[in-house]
């Protein structure tokens, strides 16, 4: 397998992962709104109807409760559904199915019925979509035991993690970001300095079976940038903000270590702890609200296991604790943006 820095989009990665796994396993199918004839509301599933036909790439009406529950039932009965939410914001109307049924079935049945399903779609502010359409569901759903949660920040991880998710025997909540679907297409900022060799997955060789082997395991964080002065822990879209912050902080001689958790469940705490033991400072960045958030959980676990290694409190950077506004400036301000991360790092390292 070769590793390249070729131009490569996040949406291509998702598509490639699904296509490969559908070729590999007849039980895998894709279902969701506009995934087939429309080629995907965000063009993630472009061409997949042509490749697999309407038996395996299936358009649904706007019936989230119905088709996500259908997926769970089908998974209990031996299939491996990929259920696309046009946006994770729309999973809320199907909450009972996805958090009551999927993650608890195995437990309720005393280990008899697993639910090998992937729920995937855009998560987080898509750009002025207002408060009902800008949900960051990570903290909401990571609360629930029995599900796994991945949130890739690069095309490479998107592909590797999605393939792992599809093969995983448990329900996986796969959180993508509309804002990064298309970056890396034509010279957009892709932080190749830090992501050298990490942007694109290995090139697909049509004549080889090795393609199948590109998997990114769950529960393994990635040290995207190593550094000595302060640990920034994040995942998903905010990784891009964190890298931008790290780049600017370097000019101030603050050398950040940026850790991409990649999955929240399971959570790779060891990598975080090792880093904190080295840097003695920690900032956690998470795009959901601060109250009872993943960031709060990570910070708490750092306190529980590395209190003595910290030279200051842990600082969380979240979205502001308010519904998402429509106005562009307000929305930018609300997000865990680069400025907020820089300020947090300066504060925590006593560089104010």
């Amino acid at each position, binding site marked *: 397998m070769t590793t390249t820095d070729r131009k490569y989009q996040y949406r291509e990665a998702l598509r490639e992962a699904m296509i490969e796994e559908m070729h590999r396993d007849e039980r895998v199918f894709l279902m969701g*709104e*506009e995934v087939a*004839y*429309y080629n995907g*509301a965000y063009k993630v599933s472009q061409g997949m109807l042509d490749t697999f036909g309407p038996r395996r790439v299936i*358009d*649904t*009406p*706007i*019936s*989230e*409760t*119905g088709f996500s529950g259908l997926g769970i039932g089908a998974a209990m009965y031996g299939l491996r559904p990929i259920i696309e939410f046009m946006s994770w*914001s*729309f999973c*809320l*109307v199907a909450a009972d199915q996805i958090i009551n049924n999927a993650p608890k079935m195995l437990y309720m049945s005393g280990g008899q019925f697993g639910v090998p399903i992937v729920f995937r779609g855009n998560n987080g502010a898509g*750009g*002025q*979509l*207002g*408060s*009902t*359409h800008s949900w960051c569901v990570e903290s909401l759903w990571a609360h629930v035991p029995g599900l796994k949660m991945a949130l890739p920040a690069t095309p490479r991880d998107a592909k590797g993690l999605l393939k792992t998710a599809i093969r995983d025997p448990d329900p996986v909540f796969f959180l993508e970001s509309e804002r990064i679907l298309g970056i890396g297409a034509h010279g957009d900022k892709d932080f190749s300095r830090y992501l050298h060799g990490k942007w694109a997955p290995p090139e697909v060789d049509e004549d080889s079976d090795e393609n199948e082997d590109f998997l990114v395991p769950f529960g393994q964080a990635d040290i995207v940038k190593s550094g000595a002065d302060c640990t920034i822990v994040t995942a998903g879209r905010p990784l891009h903000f964190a890298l931008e912050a790290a780049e600017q902080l370097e000019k101030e001689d603050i050398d950040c270590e940026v850790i991409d958790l990649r999955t929240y469940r399971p959570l790779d705490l060891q990598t975080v702890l090792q880093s904190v033991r080295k840097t003695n400072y920690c900032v956690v960045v998470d795009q959901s609200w601060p109250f009872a958030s993943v960031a709060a959980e990570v910070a708490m676990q750092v306190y529980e296991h590395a209190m003595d290694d910290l030279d200051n409190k842990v600082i969380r950077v979240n979205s*502001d*604790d*308010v*519904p998402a*506004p*429509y*106005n*562009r*400036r*307000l929305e930018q*301000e*609300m997000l865990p943006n680069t400025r907020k991360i820089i300020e947090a790092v300066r504060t925590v390292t006593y560089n104010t």
Partner: protein
Amino acid sequence: MTTATGKKSSSSSQPRDGGRPSDQLDDQRLLELLYDMMLIRRFEERTMQSYMQQKIGGFCHIYTGQEAVAVGSIAALRPDDPVITAYRDHGHALARGMHPRYCMAEMFGKITGCAKGKGGSMHMFDRPNEMYGGHAIVGGQCPLGVGIAFAIQYQKLDRVCLCYLGDGALNQGAFHEAMNLAAIWKLPIVFALENNMYSMGTHIERGTSAAHDLSVKAAAYDMRYAECDGMDMCEVYDCFVDQVARTRPDEGDPDNSEGPVLINVVTYRYQGHSMSDPQKYRTREEVGEKQNEDPITTLSRQLMDQQRATQEQLNELDAEAKKAVLEAVKFAGDSPEPELDELYTDVYLEPYPPYRKGDLPQMVEEAEDRARDGDGRQKQD
């Protein structure tokens, strides 16, 4: 009459016999309604332009083609009847009397917008005009509409809630639960199905059972059903006047109502689903064919055929609509952005730190001032 998929049957071209509610509308009123449709049309043209110029962001859904639905149905209401709809809501807001400047300013994200720039295109709220929003989750407004109707019944008022939904919402659980609740409690609600045949790229025949006969959806809930041609304002008006009257309870006697109704209003959207829709699921010919049934042209022609208006008058009206919209765009452009600390207002009515109490939108304050001066709820322009 039309069938559920919009093929016209011959009856809709029958001559008017003078016995319909729209025959009772005087020239002035008809011209007002035509103006409202022209205003929406011109407004949406500028909305699209402003979106292209990136003055408007987010999801933006254009109402052109469907003007007769909002205008004809709202004309059949009293000013104190509440209205609620989905996200394709600019037309309803304007038809309900929201001044175009507050509607446009909202989409520009300005503090002068109807929701102070916090809601955007999909969330047109106008308390003084009894508009309970613009709602962005498909079907989500249906239970809310039922709740408004419940409150009407509870307070023994003689009002009717008008709740719009798209054909896509027919497949959402919230719609079905709302229908059942409305039916078992005989709530005063009119469900206006704006059947433009598509939910995004999905034709109704592909996503909805019994698309050829939607009356069965109402029958399943033991509810009244009606349908009308949404491309003809007078037909919409006639149908809604009749149905609203049957649903309207007496003041103090909520039982004296024929209960809820589902009205299938067959219409068509000219533009893509939102501003980013390549529309590969339908042909240019199909769109062109529908544009031949244009609701504004239809009403204009009816008025001229009946010698109730001259071409000149109509041109003047249209020029007036254009002018109003230009003024709205200018107002929106000139208005200030909300301050950053507006993030923390309007989260609670009794805020605790770090939240703060917000001011009401300029639109509401002005309306309340006018109400104090004795001419509240009056439509401007």
